[in-house]
């Protein structure tokens, strides 16, 4: 029996249970157990289609239509879900070291994991919209958990804009339904390719792009996302950024599948490339100006999101593969960086000028964070290098050498602010007294374990990128646009 829906259903079920028993004494233990269960989930499904409720393909006037909701699993989706669950597990493990952990945190993380995996797995546009909304509300909720005034403010602002962007996306889904008579993405794409385009389809495309920019944190929505990441606890930001990166990948793939073969796609591609380049440059320039380590990392997330979107927007096989690979790598090293930021915040303060000399207090953590930083800049032998190289190749073969120059410039900027942060936090000399103060704070083994595991994965993927690339390449060729 194909157990594919359990990837979504088990976290949902447990989320409801956790939100009901949120005050229980055994929350920590249960959270750890749940983390173990999550690791098994990606292995449950079989490759191929899965029809909900047994409603399979029907033929109406000779055209095949999927009558119900269709999920598919393929190696690409499996890799994405595995990365997602891995980071979810590490965040849950770290959360058990928090003082006031309650079931609501675990419930929200599980809800987010379930909804993002549904967004990745689904082949149905309305189903995607439903889970996209759940993911948006979950992200706001995870920020509210921090309980500070600015967290409330940024979450409220995110939801306010989210209501607008979500309704626009829903309207787009409705327009596409009316224009094609189906909600299945493959069926819709086939129908659109057969019939001449109407303004309805253009409107739908416009609305999908708005939804994509909101869900993935592309400009002009990037300031909202940055607020979210920087106002919450940094280890929560690790899972938040993973959610939005994977939603970005999923929605990009949807746009490619729907509009890939159409004459409008050239313009769409231009718009998407412009958006992603804006994200790259804006993120880097703003990160250079920050004093708060959390905000710096948040802007870095935006700029790397631009890389991911750039690769996918090219629409070539290599571009799609490079974009998705960079998304996976980014999720790994960025989570490591955010966990590092959590340790820094725990020891002293998130403001870079108030810390200094942490190298002497915790050499292991410093080394691990340095590795994650090098991965994020794109230095061999880490994974960031592999995916950025692949991206540069893809952009080059798509005949846009200017963008490669821009990517290099942005990389130099990334190097500069990452090293600036590293110097200010870890290397800047500090007094004996401060050092003693640092040494009093105990860093839990769970934090170091999570950090170490992520950095190890970064190195492994940097040395053997084929492990992931082999799984992505066939799918990239299938989706790509000639």
């Amino acid at each position, binding site marked *: 029996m194909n157990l594919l*829906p359990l990837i979504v*259903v088990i976290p949902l*079920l447990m989320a*409801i*249970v956790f*939100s009901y028993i*949120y*005050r229980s004494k055994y929350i920590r233990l249960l959270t750890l157990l749940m983390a173990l269960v999550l690791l098994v989930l990606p292995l449950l499904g079989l490759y191929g289609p899965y029809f*909900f*409720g*047994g*409603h399979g393909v*029907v033929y*109406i006037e000779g055209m095949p*239509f*999927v*009558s*119900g*909701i269709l999920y598919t699993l393929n190696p690409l989706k499996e890799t994405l879900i595995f990365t997602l669950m891995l980071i979810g597990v590490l965040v849950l493990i770290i959360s058990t070291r*928090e*003082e*006031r952990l*309650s079931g*609501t*945190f675990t*419930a*929200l993380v599980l*809800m987010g994991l379930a909804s993002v995996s549904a967004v990745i797995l689904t082949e*149905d546009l*309305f*189903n995607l919209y*439903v*889970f996209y909304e*759940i993911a948006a*509300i*979950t992200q*706001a*909720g995870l920020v*509210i*958990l*921090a*309980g*500070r*005034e600015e967290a*409330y403010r940024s979450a409220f602002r995110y939801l306010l804009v989210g209501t607008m962007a979500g309704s626009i996306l829903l*309207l787009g889904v409705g*327009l596409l339904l*009316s*224009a094609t*008579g189906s*909600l*299945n993405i493959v*069926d819709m794409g086939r*129908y659109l390719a057969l019939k001449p385009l109407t*303004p*309805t*389809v253009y*409107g*739908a495309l*416009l609305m999908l792009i708005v939804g994509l920019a909101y869900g993935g944190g592309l400009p002009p929505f990037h300031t909202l996302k940055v607020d979210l990441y920087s106002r919450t606890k940094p280890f929560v930001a690790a899972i938040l950024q993973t959610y939005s990166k994977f939603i970005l990948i999923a929605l990009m793939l949807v746009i490619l599948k729907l509009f890939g073969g159409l004459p409008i796609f050239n313009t769409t591609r231009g718009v998407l490339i412009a958006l992603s380049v804006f994200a790259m440059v804006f993120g880097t320039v703003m990160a250079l100006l920050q004093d708060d380590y959390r905000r710096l990392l948040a802007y870095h997330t935006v700029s790397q999101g631009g890389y991911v979107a750039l690769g996918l927007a090219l629409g070539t096989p290599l571009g799609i593969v490079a974009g998705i690979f960079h998304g996976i790598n980014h999720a790994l090293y960025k989570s490591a960086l955010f966990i590092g930021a959590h340790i820094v915040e725990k020891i002293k303060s998130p403001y870079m000028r108030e810390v200094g000399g942490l190298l002497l207090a915790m050499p292991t953590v410093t080394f691990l964070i340095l590795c994650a930083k090098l991965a994020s800049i794109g230095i061999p032998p880490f994974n960031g290098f592999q995916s950025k190289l692949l991206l540069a190749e893809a952009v080059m073969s798509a005949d846009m050498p200017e963008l490669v120059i821009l990517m290099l410039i942005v990389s130099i900027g990334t190097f500069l602010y990452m090293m600036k942060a590293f110097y200010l936090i870890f290397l800047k000399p500090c007094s004996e007294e401060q050092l003693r103060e640092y040494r009093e704070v105990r860093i839990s083994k769970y934090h170091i374990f999570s950090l170490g595991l992520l950095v190890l994965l970064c190195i492994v993927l940097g040395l053997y990128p084929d492990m992931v690339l082999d799984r992505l390449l066939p799918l990239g060729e299938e989706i790509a646009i000639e």
Partner: protein
Amino acid sequence: MKITITREIAVSLSFLLFGAGVFYSIYSIEVVEGVNALYTQVMIVPNFVTAVLFDWRGFDTLGECLILITSVLVTGMVFGKGLFNWDFLREVYREEDGKDVDLGFTPIIKVLAVPMAVLLMVLGVVVILGGHITPGGGFQGGALISAAYVLAMVAFGRGRCPVRFTHRFLESLESFGALLFLILGLIGMILSGYYLFNIREIYGIPLFPSPPGIGDVGIIPYLNIGVGLKVLAGLSTITTLLVSHRIVSKNIGRG
């Protein structure tokens, strides 16, 4: 922040463009029937909307329920449920003494509110249970019942409300409704291999007793009941949160 006139003009222009685009695309809609032909030809239950919602696209309905669940959970967190840090909320609720103020309305409203509430509740139950035959269903019925509860609470105040649901009870009801939906889906998966499969009968016994001639009802009424419980509890929970200070005080560890 001061906004210059240039920016205002730019905003109005861009909204004009966007609005024109949306209007143009909606104006030129030509509806293609597509897969909907199937939905209108195959009869599962007499109410075709319910058939689409709970049979063809049951998983979407589950997702919609979960949107509500998540919203209720997040609303609870806005009022202090399980936060990492309560300093801000403690500051906001500094001067509240943790007691609920029950104002209540005049006797005219009170006298009218009780029968209205009872009627609304009964109507809600009918709408939920008959969701597969007549117009309506879990969402509508649940909203009716919670409207009845809100009406009674507004008229009498929370303390003296004739319809007494405690906060904990509502939370349990909500979780139970959602779990019912999820577990019915799992049972379908065990029996047929498909999640949310509409099980017609088990060993020849129909799952829901209904007169002949109204199609294969299967698990649809149970799904309706689950959704109804969830919606009624969710909306009522949000209302109690807005009305009551006591819950917030309890959440933030005072009282």
